[in-house]
């Protein structure tokens, strides 16, 4: 067993530990009269500000360029990243982020383009949006697309708004107020439905982890507007009854919204359009690798079936011969309106298209297959020491274990995750989906080599053996080798300190 970490972690004078350097907030190192940007003071200026000129100080600290560089580089080294190691966060899809995408997004013709400049001067940008649309529509087998949603949850709003508009056109917007959502769904699904005044109605998955046709049939009625189903679902399983479910929903007068967060398992392999889907968002930052950037920006274009296409939001693209036109106003048509200023996350469109063109249709299918292959490889390599909640069966791009293998060890799922940090891994997703006790959802993605997967397996097996041997302190005191040990989240929430102040 290791000694208590206090024996070695506080021994330096500076608080630094070699390459792990401490860095105070900018407010403790900057000064309001320092600046790292040289700007010429205007020669003479007669302000036209009315009486609204700021008088008092703001308090913003400034850093010279070297100080800024050091501050942010030091901070960066306190982060884990996909570039530095396996990041098996199930449901989040941490795959390799090609730098070509960054390079292309920074071309002046894309980065230095104003959303409201004359469309005649931005035909290349509109062509890029058209090309991305073509790919996304072909890959999904759908009819129409809204590029503007800013992230997955925004896409959910977009899809549900189109559904409500279609219901309104049928005169049923007031009577159909229920949205069926499985217990395993992402939290955004019920949150999006509730925001628009729908009542979420929970449907239970079967013992095999997927939703049955019967469960849906039982929950359907004249009050149901739609079903929201994630496929592959958050347990890493393909909803194999999906076609029958879609048929039932349609027969009952409802629409099928598919949460496309896990499209990366089937891109190029199967098409949601063939499954009866009416609307689905695509997380460009997951499936098409526009980077996560520490939690955003996301990008959540929505594809629509023919039935919902007329209700898609503005703006949308129209081709008029050689010219592309972005339609920015509803013009009295059936479009449900505008979701955001301007045209969506154009910078992520560039990155996603660069990623897509690099892979091609063949490469995208191969990436999906490799992701599924790698998840199953981990599953069989760990199934004798971990426990699968839905029995020993194939999974899709992510494999779900539960914590029953830790029973009696005194090690919780959280402890186990923290011990992985000491081993140099970002933990998998834990405690999600909620339907499985002590869930551990592992998504290796297609970006890992076999060597990397084998090392991960060996590490996991060692950790599990250690837990079973009763070496609990390796877990309960973890992490010891991270920039910080466990943080007091209770204190943070009881007395929130959300901004720096001089104390």
């Amino acid at each position: 067993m290791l000694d208590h970490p206090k024996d070695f972690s506080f021994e330096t004078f500076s608080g630094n530990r070699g390459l792990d350097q401490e860095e105070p907030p900018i407010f403790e190192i900057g000064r309001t009269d320092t600046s790292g940007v040289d700007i010429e003071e205007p020669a003479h200026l007669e302000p036209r500000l009315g009486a609204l000129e700021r008088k008092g100080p703001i308090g913003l600290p400034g850093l010279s360029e070297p100080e800024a560089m050091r501050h942010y580089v030091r901070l960066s080294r306190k982060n884990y990243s996909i570039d530095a190691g396996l990041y098996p966060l199930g449901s989040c899809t941490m795959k390799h982020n090609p730098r070509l995408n960054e390079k292309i997004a920074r071309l002046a013709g894309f980065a230095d383009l104003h959303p409201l400049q004359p469309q005649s001067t931005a035909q290349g940008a509109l062509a890029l949006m058209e090309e991305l649309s073509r790919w996304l529509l072909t890959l999904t087998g759908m009819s129409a697309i809204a590029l503007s949603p800013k992230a997955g949850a925004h896409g959910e709003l977009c899809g549900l708004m189109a559904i409500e508009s279609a219901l309104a056109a049928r005169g049923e917007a007031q009577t159909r107020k229920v949205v069926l959502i499985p217990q395993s769904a992402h939290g955004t699904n019920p949150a999006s439905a509730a925001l628009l005044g729908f009542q979420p109605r929970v449907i239970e998955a079967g013992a095999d982890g997927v939703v049955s046709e019967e469960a849906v049939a039982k929950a359907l009625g004249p009050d149901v507007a739609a079903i929201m189903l994630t496929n592959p679902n958050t347990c890493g399983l393909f909803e194999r009854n999906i076609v029958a479910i879609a048929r039932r929903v349609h027969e009952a007068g409802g629409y099928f919204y598919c949460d496309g967060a896990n499209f990366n398992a089937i891109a190029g392999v199967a098409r949601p359009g063939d499954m009866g889907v009416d609307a689905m968002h695509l997380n460009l930052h997951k499936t098409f690798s526009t980077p996560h950037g520490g939690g955003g920006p996301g990008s959540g274009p929505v594809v629509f079936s023919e039935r919902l296409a007329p209700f898609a939001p503005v703006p949308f693209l129209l081709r008029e011969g050689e010219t592309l036109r972005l339609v920015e106003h509803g013009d009295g048509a059936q479009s449900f309106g505008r979701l955001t200023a301007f045209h969506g996350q154009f910078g992520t469109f560039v990155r996603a298209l660069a990623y897509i063109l690099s892979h091609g249709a063949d490469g995208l299918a191969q990436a999906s297959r490799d992701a599924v292959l790698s998840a199953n490889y981990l599953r069989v390599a760990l199934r004798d020491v971990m426990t699968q909640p839905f029995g020993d069966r194939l999974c899709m791009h992510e494999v779900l274990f539960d914590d029953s293998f830790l029973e009696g060890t005194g090690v919780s799922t959280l402890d186990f995750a923290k011990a992985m940090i000491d081993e140099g891994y970002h933990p998998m997703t834990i405690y999600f989906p909620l339907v499985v006790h002590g869930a551990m959802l592992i998504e290796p993605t297609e970006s890992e080599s076999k060597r990397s997967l084998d090392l991960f397996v060996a590490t996991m097996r060692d950790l599990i053996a250690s837990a079973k041997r009763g070496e609990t302190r390796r877990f309960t005191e973890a992490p010891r080798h991270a920039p910080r040990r466990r943080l007091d989240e209770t204190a943070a929430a009881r007395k929130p300190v959300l901004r720096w102040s001089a104390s």
Partner: protein
Amino acid sequence: MRYLPLTDVDRTQMREAIGVADFAALYADVPSELLLEAPLDLPRAKSEIEVERLLSAMAKRNLSAASAPFFIGAGAYRHHIPASVDHLIQRSEFLTSYTPYQPEISQGTLQYLFEFQTQVAMLTGMEIANASMYDGSTACAEAALMAHRITKRRKAILSGGLHPHYADVLRTISHFAGDEIVALAPDVRAREDIASAIDDSVSCVILQTPDVFGNLRDLAPIAEACHRHGALLVAVFTEAVSLGLLKSPGEMGADITVGEGQSLGNPLSFGGPYLGLFATRQSHLRQTPGRLIGETVDADGRRGYVVTLSAREQHIRRDKATSNICTNSNLCALAFSIHLSLLGEAGLRRLARANHASAVDLVDRLASVAGVETLNESFFNEFTLRVPGDAARLVEAMAEQGVLAGVPVSRLLPDAGLDDLLIVASTEVDTVEDREAFVAAMRGAL
């Protein structure tokens, strides 16, 4: 395929380990009629060179701001971005990390967001700020929803100076959420009477300054009128740099301040990704949407940061969450924060003055152009011109002369009968020569 590390030998070995003969067997859970038999009718994989060639050709078909005298604003602004900003945000540890759910190995992200929250609170004169939202327009819609939760009323009054896209986003959300919107008529000269529209049924007034036509608005009397009726004032800005020179919304009595943060650190990028700034009073903390970072200590008593108060958020509250939002605009917030740290207070004030000076100079030069009238009594770096004839046609004609002149109001408000109005922005990147070219091109086109 250069991004896929598995070799065919690996794949075979792995399939054997799993016990599946081929990829079809791996997808056994997918009904066979759903599996594509033939590849889709789409191009095959391409090398870096090929992709670069293809996409560069698309980029070249656009007239970029860098290649022409440029005066377009109306919600997105061209500013100089220090080289170090773009370098730093491309650090692997910033670019390729996820939401900081494991705080022990995410202190970099958590600390810069804590710094960001503090900077936004200082800049807006508010007590607290969140870790950013999608963009200004969606932050604005979230502010209205939050005001409704706080006041338990459902009617928002929109100033006629609010960016029309923001008003449209509010209309969409309100329509579906069943809330009421009272949108005042487009108010080119900032003469609307908001106060008399406020009564005890109003949840909030949404008022932008500088407004979309560039006018500066005094929020104080409207804040007072709101508070008399138990309503909240939501202050909106689309040009964050203006806060370096103008009274802050907090100082003028705003209850919630939202805005677009693109101006600092983030390129125009044809409309996104940008970042929404969201700040409010401490007393509204529990109703605040979006991610919040808080300071705490670790097991050894060392200062650290965590995502906090997440019980408000969708992954816990589900249908009872304060918002359905899951992502923030993290990397854009980092760019904003680095740029603002580099500027510091002194730099921001100088930058703001340089912007104002540039706009003042252009307005003065335009005074000599016959038939063109500047409508603003006050402005920051943007103003509205009345031009003879159709402003959209004038913009096209000036673009043909290589000058990107501004946003015709008809592009934002096609049915308002304001076809002769042009919104023009001038920032620190414009040179005297650019402004001369603007005036010359306008004379030529008229």
